């Protein structure tokens, strides 16, 4: 152990953790700022957090094409990590933009909210850049603990409490599984480094028959699959997504999910490359199961947040198709998909944030009847996001799905692509239901309570631009995604 510490100290490379370091420092400073601020006034904290994210974004981007490793090979901030970190930063930024007025409306403007989002983002970055299972675990814990608090942030609301508690208990179990998996793998291979595990698998081709190794690997996967809400580990999603504050729901569905995908990809594709055939068949089943479960249950949902929760499960399934493909196209496709999903899903949630009344009991299918006429601009924005979630051109949802399925077909998984496309066809129905309510039903309410505030409007505008830009001229970002693969 002492040797490990020594080695780590010798390998200090602050460059490799600079982005997350900046975020953490900002987070701590902002915690103090909010302590000394007047209660109920959090707007300046929100804007400072945005500034922190912008600075972090620049620091992160400056590392593009300049991979930095360090701390005894436990961190590697390469293009892959940069890309995923940027997704998390964008997700966090959009979340904060839509949060301020939301918190005031719901009556809980507490300053800790924003630093917690920054800590979550820092955790996500460690997950994306970790090359040692312990680093990834550390990131996962920082991310999860902040999220538990955020999910249960409205402590006087039953549903929010339920969300926080449920997420905490199930999340704690899943982290337990993950840690147990790490321990077993360490027992077999004698290392927690992903490269070390890869070397072990290379040297022992029969490791697929080693019960302890398999058990460890599977437990590890359970931890990640829980976080990306893949079936059959998705049960927490609907309740938590429905009960959590809406901006946090949006954030959970984009940032942390992307980070979990990043860690999953690095662990499986770098560390367990030797077990490709076993893992791809596992992911094949999981991908189909996840998208089918998500889509079919979403069909019968009436609550919009719950519907989008199931939709987000199904989108995790689509993204996993890229993992099954296990080739360069598939990997870049996941990167691209997570970015696109961030824009389209967070945009949709931002619209929901605006049209909810206090307590958000009106966020149901019937509650949006005639929205398209009373609030035409919000209606058009939500329509664009829904078309993108469906995967129709010329939105980004189309290019992203195209990328994913092209990767699968290229790797020879025609049936998987067929099932994915069939699933998209099923998903049309519930997205259409929202649009039918918005445009084909006569308005029952006047939506007079909808006050469009500037920050939320900015987050919606950014999402619309993102969805259309990545849908019409995706070339530049696709190239970045290609460069960000391993």
């Amino acid at each position: 152990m002492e040797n490990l510490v020594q080695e780590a100290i010798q390998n200090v490379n602050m460059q490799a953790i600079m982005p997350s370091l900046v975020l953490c420092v900002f987070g701590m400073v902002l915690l103090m700022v909010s302590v000394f601020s007047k209660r109920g006034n959090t707007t300046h904290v929100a804007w400072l957090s945005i500034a922190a994210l912008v600075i972090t974004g620049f620091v992160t981007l400056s590392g593009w094409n300049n991979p930095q490793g360090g701390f005894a090979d436990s961190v590697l901030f390469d293009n892959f990590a940069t890309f995923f970190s940027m997704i998390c930063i964008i997700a966090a930024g959009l979340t904060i933009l839509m949060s301020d007025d939301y918190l005031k409306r719901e009556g809980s403007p507490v300053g800790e909210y924003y630093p917690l989002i920054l800590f979550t983002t820092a955790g996500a970055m460690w997950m994306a850049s970790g090359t040692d299972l312990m680093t990834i675990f550390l990131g996962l814990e920082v991310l999860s603990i902040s999220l538990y608090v955020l999910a249960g942030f409205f402590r006087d609301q039953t549903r929010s409490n339920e969300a926080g508690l449920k997420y905490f208990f199930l999340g704690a179990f899943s982290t337990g599984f993950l840690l147990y998996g790490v321990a077993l793998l360490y027992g077999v291979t004698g290392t927690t480094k992903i490269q070390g595990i890869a070397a072990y698998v290379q040297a022992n081709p029969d490791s697929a028959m080693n019960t302890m190794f398999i058990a460890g690997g599977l437990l590890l996967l359970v931890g990640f699959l829980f976080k990306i809400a893949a079936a059959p580990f998705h049960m927490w999603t609907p309740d938590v997504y429905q009960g959590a504050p809406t901006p946090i729901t949006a954030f959970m569905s984009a940032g942390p999910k992307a980070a979990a995908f990043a860690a999953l990809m690095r662990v499986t594709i770098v560390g367990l490359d030797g077990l490709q055939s076993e893992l791809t068949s596992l992911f094949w089943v999981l991908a189909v199961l996840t998208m089918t479960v998500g889509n079919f249950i979403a069909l019968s949902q009436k609550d919009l947040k719950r519907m989008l929760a199931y939709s987000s499960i199904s989108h995790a399934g689509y993204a996993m198709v890229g993992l099954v493909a296990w080739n360069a196209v598939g990997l870049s496709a996941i990167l691209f998909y997570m970015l696109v999903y961030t824009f389209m899903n967070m945009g949709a949630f931002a619209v929901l944030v605006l049209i909810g009344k206090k307590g958000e009991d009106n966020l149901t299918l019937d509650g949006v009847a005639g929205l398209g006429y009373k609030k035409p601009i919000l209606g058009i924005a939500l329509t664009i996001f829904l078309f993108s979630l469906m995967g129709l051109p010329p939105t980004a949802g189309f290019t992203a799905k195209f990328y994913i399925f092209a990767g699968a077909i290229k790797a020879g998984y025609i049936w998987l692509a067929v099932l994915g496309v069939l699933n998209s066809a099923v998903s049309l129905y519930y997205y259409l239901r929202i649009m039918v309510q918005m445009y084909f039903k006569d308005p029952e309410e006047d939506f007079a309570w909808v006050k469009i505030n500037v920050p939320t409007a900015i987050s919606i505008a950014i999402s619309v631009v993102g969805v259309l830009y990545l849908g019409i001229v995706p070339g530049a970002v696709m190239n970045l995604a290609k460069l960000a693969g391993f």
Partner: protein
Amino acid sequence: MTADSSLQFPLLSLLLWLPILGALLCLLWYKAPAASRWIALGTSTAVFVLSLVAGLYSTGSAGWFLYEDASWIEHFGIRYTLGMDGISLLLIILTAFLQLVAVVISWDQDKFSALFFALILVLGTGIMGVFLALDLILFYLFWELMLIPMFFLIGVWGYKRKVYAAVKFFLFTLAGSLCLLLAVISLHLLHGEQTGVYTFALEALQQTRLSFSQEMLFYLCFMAAFAVKVPIFPFHSWLPDAHTEAPVAASVDLAGLLLKTGVYGMIRFAFPLFPHAAEKSLPVLAVLALIGLFYAAWIAYLQTDIKRIVAYSSISHLGFVLLGLAAWNQTAWEGSLLLMINHGVTTGALFIAIALIHKRTGTREIAKLGGIWKSQPNLAAFFLLFSLASLGLPGLANFSGEILILIGTFSSNAVWAIFAVGGVLFSAAYILRMVQGTIWGPCCEPFDKQDLGGREWLVLIPLAVLVVILGCYPQPLLDSLREPVSFMLRQGGQP
């Protein structure tokens, strides 16, 4: 095959994107309904003029006389490639014309009129894009783009069962197009593996070496998309609902244009890409065409709503078009394409006449209608003219196409032709029943005794003139079709 595209004025792009520009302007002035009307009228007039200008470049030979090509998404080899030959020229002119008609006929649309006209214009871009695109992904993009405005046009401005009709239309057509997308991606990758060039260009993909079973599979996927749109017999059930519930402008676009995109997709993409599979499928297509022809005619005869009768008559006529394609010879193909144009004009005109009757009587039920000839003789005369054209009366529009199809089919398979002649008889039955119940008979009391107004004359006269011209002198159209059709038939190989 490709014309020199350098330093050419981008006429096709202008044609394509002008309506989108108009749509954006409409939305900008959404607070002033009158402005959006005039913008829509101005845009569609300009597009119509441009489409005629494009006709001036026509050379009469096969190949693209207008061609544009630019790089778009290099990552996948997706290009922005547009091309116009004699076939697409005619369909583009038809589109531009019907779009103009649709705008004028919806002039007093006062429910969210800015959105309405914007959607009509976007629909125009989608349809023209389908007729011009030569890159399969670009084609798919426009193919889906047609869907969205139509969904809203039916759902927002439709009649009683609009939600049901709109959702059904959307789900049917999208399910078909997803099959198309899968096949396109697979074909692209297969071609890339063989040649190392990853492209979606139609001409390049035609060179892909495919085993027969692969070809058949891809062909079926393509046809799934096109068959729903045409619609070919078992996939037709969305059409009567969509047509009946749609507002008049959308009905005109649906029957006049959207159905044609399916047939166009077959002759431009499905047949040339997969000639062997196409060849094997011809008898099946012919049988489905004949079933559609008779079945739809029979159902049309049993309908009580005159708009539904015309909707079913569309399925029946498209069965005729399909039969001509299945006959696979020059005469039949020219007839099919001509009938597409004719059907676009006559059915569009019929839908307009029905809408005018509906506006005056408040009903479309045969049982409640009657005696229009007495109360509104001018309107009744137009309705009669269009009905007779739809029935296939010699000298009027549909006849010229149908006779060519029959002649062509006779030379390749006499049995099919004999059956098809029976179909003409069937269509006479339901059309005459409709005319009889509407124009003659006991007079129903229209609450609006007004005969045609100025704007209505303005729409109906050009349509009537076209119906007569297309029936008596279709030669210029046939001239434009001849070389491209014979080129396509050679390309597909003679079965």
